[in-house]
């Protein structure tokens, strides 16, 4: 006679409850991921997020992804050659990042993790500027204000709160929901599947919901947090986390640049319009190691990787473009030249990045230097001088 909750199996029941939509909180939508381009490069339609893409736009996405991959492979090679201390590879996540990056307007603002090289590229940050922190010459070489692109954040999840606060600032600045497309702005907070477990990320959901802040939480679920699979972080699809906080979540095929673009853009527009936060889960796969110091063979099957190679974000767009005569060999060849130039720029630029001066260590501890820091700086300068260039 004991009533029991135990007849509820989780996966299936929740799916029933959430209904057929991939959008938690949405009554409509097709089954599964939002997808506009299949792994085979077939254009498919979607009731909620479809839109037309012009030829120029499509070639643009392709170019962006090819160049982003080049940045990544070049940096990986630089690490192998000892020019970088470490590199966080994005291999496989190009579509997620370009889709998200291209959906932005200039007045929007981005809070990245340490892996958003493709988004940085979209924002106009010189990729060379990304190398500094991995080389160990600085903690971030670009000025966030130049491109509305924050510095890389290494403490997992911290930036989700910064993004929410920044978005609350936008509300106070009156740049949300005015209806003026050049004025209304929103924020994107990037983070990974692993980060979804941090208190900070969940608190960001709470603050964003509570204040209806114009922020898009863009989670690249690349299935892994170093060696830990997504199952350790969540037993239901991650986009559904948003449900618990009272705002929409949507899962998009993160290897489909068109779908990622469309979904992110819609979510951004929602935010700019003053309708509050959205969680976008870009379902993708980390095809490389966590970083160049990681050895994924210790914890995952090569089969998995093979499986995901078939879903390669660049290959699928190229197949579509070629099939529809939107690119030809000339285009690809020209792009190859452009990529080679970029590679050259990175290689030469990286090697030329100057080591910081030892005394620069004392710079910018405060906006107004204290006497204490000044004294330590002077003391160390004198100490260095005492070696007259002969320090061991």
């Amino acid at each position, binding site marked *: 006679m004991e009533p029991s909750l135990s007849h509820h199996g989780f996966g299936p029941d929740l799916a029933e409850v959430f209904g057929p939509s991939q959008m938690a909180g949405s009554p409509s939508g097709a089954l599964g991921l939002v997808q506009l381009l299949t792994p085979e490069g077939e254009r498919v339609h979607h009731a909620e997020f479809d839109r037309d893409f012009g030829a120029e736009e499509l070639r643009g996405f392709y170019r962006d992804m090819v160049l982003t991959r080049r940045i990544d492979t070049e940096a990986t090679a630089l690490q192998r050659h000892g020019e970088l201390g470490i590199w966080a590879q994005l291999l496989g996540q190009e579509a997620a990042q370009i889709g998200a990056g291209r959906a932005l307007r200039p007045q929007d603002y981005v809070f990245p993790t340490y892996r958003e090289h493709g988004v940085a590229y979209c924002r106009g940050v010189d990729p060379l500027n990304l190398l500094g922190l991995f080389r160990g010459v600085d903690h971030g070489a670009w000025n966030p204000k130049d491109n509305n692109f924050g510095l890389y954040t290494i*403490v997992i999840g911290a930036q989700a709160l910064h993004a929410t*606060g920044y978005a609350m600032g936008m509300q106070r600045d009156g740049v949300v929901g005015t209806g003026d497309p050049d004025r209304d702005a929103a924020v994107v907070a990037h983070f990974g599947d692993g980060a979804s477990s941090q208190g900070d990320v969940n608190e960001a959901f709470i603050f964003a919901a509570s204040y209806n802040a114009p922020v898009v939480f863009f989670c690249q679920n690349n299935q892994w947090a170093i060696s830990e699979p997504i199952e350790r972080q969540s037993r239901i699809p991650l986009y559904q986390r948003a449900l618990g906080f009272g705002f929409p979540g949507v899962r998009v095929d993160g290897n489909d640049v068109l779908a990622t673009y469309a979904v992110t853009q819609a979510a951004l527009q929602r935010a700019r319009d003053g309708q509050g936060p959205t969680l976008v889960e870009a379902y993708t796969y980390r095809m490389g190691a966590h970083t160049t110091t990681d050895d994924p063979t210790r914890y995952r099957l090569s089969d998995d990787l093979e499986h995901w190679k078939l879903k390669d974000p660049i290959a699928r767009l190229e197949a579509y473009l070629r099939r529809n005569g939107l690119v030809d060999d000339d285009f690809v060849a020209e792009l190859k030249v452009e990529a080679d130039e970029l590679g050259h720029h990175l290689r030469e630029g990286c090697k030329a990045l100057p080591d910081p001066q030892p005394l620069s260590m004392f710079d910018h501890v*405060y906006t107004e230097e204290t006497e204490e820091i000044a004294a330590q700086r002077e003391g160390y300068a004198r100490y260095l001088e005492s070696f007259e260039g002969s320090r061991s």
Partner: protein
Amino acid sequence: MSTRITLAKGLNMGLRKAMEDDPKVLVMGEDVGKLGGVFRITDGLQKDFGEDRVIDSPLAESGIVGTAVGMALRGYRPVVEIQFDGFVYPAYDQIVCQVAKMTYRSKGRSPMPMVIRIPFGGGIGAVEHHSESPEAQFAHTPGLKVVACSNPVDGYWMIQQAIASDDPVIFLEPKRQYHADKAELDESVTPDPLFSSRIVRAGTDATVLAYGPTVKTALKAAEAAAGDGVSLEVIDLRTLSPLDMGPVYDSVRRTGRAVVTHEAHVNLGMGAEISARITEECFYSLEAPVLRVGGFDTPYPASRIEEDFLPDLDRVLDAVDRSLDF
């Protein structure tokens, strides 16, 4: 125009002034709005400046400080209230890894003009976590500035100066003093700079260093000592990071003896650093080692015996005696 105010009133007036002077100044925290804070330091501010500028936050300290970081990046000057000292720790990561490092990380491009107000210290008969003195941990963190006010007039000026600073300031308020003594505020004077210590009583036999709640204790001790013919110089440190040691060194060179007192645990408390620095700088002037009088190295005890845990007049005088007898 001069008025008699409590520390709570001084802080409230200072906050109000800062908000009037600069529309970018925001107040954030738990219960800071309608309630005016559990200590009423933000009393009336939401009514006058609105909910957009005086923000009642969800119950999450990391969230409060983390969103304040975002606000600061957007050009605001958030003043965050932590309800009690013991509740700053959920925000510790945001404070030491983000607030403290953002200026450095960004080469000065993204400063953090933020004030984190913390009612600190004991003596109010409270339950666990409501009487902590976390200052040493923040002072150990480069990138943060840490100050402690000890009286109503300083409260009024220092909170404004902290808000005006482009560096993040941990602003410690001796909660036991909030509604205690009143003092005369004369708004027409020019206040001392924020990051300066101050001799609050001149003396010749020994130097007593204090800040926040122990300044009053030190002054009472000096008063009592005077009765016994012992002349104590008392310095209110006011700034804990950076430390303003110039006046301290001068004083110790004259008196040859120093006692530091604070409520925080002695082990690795501010007294340790001050002792080390005085010894480095005034080695040949010292007639005795710098002595430290602080909270013992136990967790904060049940409040019925907190006055045994906390430094008081007698323990300060005992240390002075030991120093003089050394």
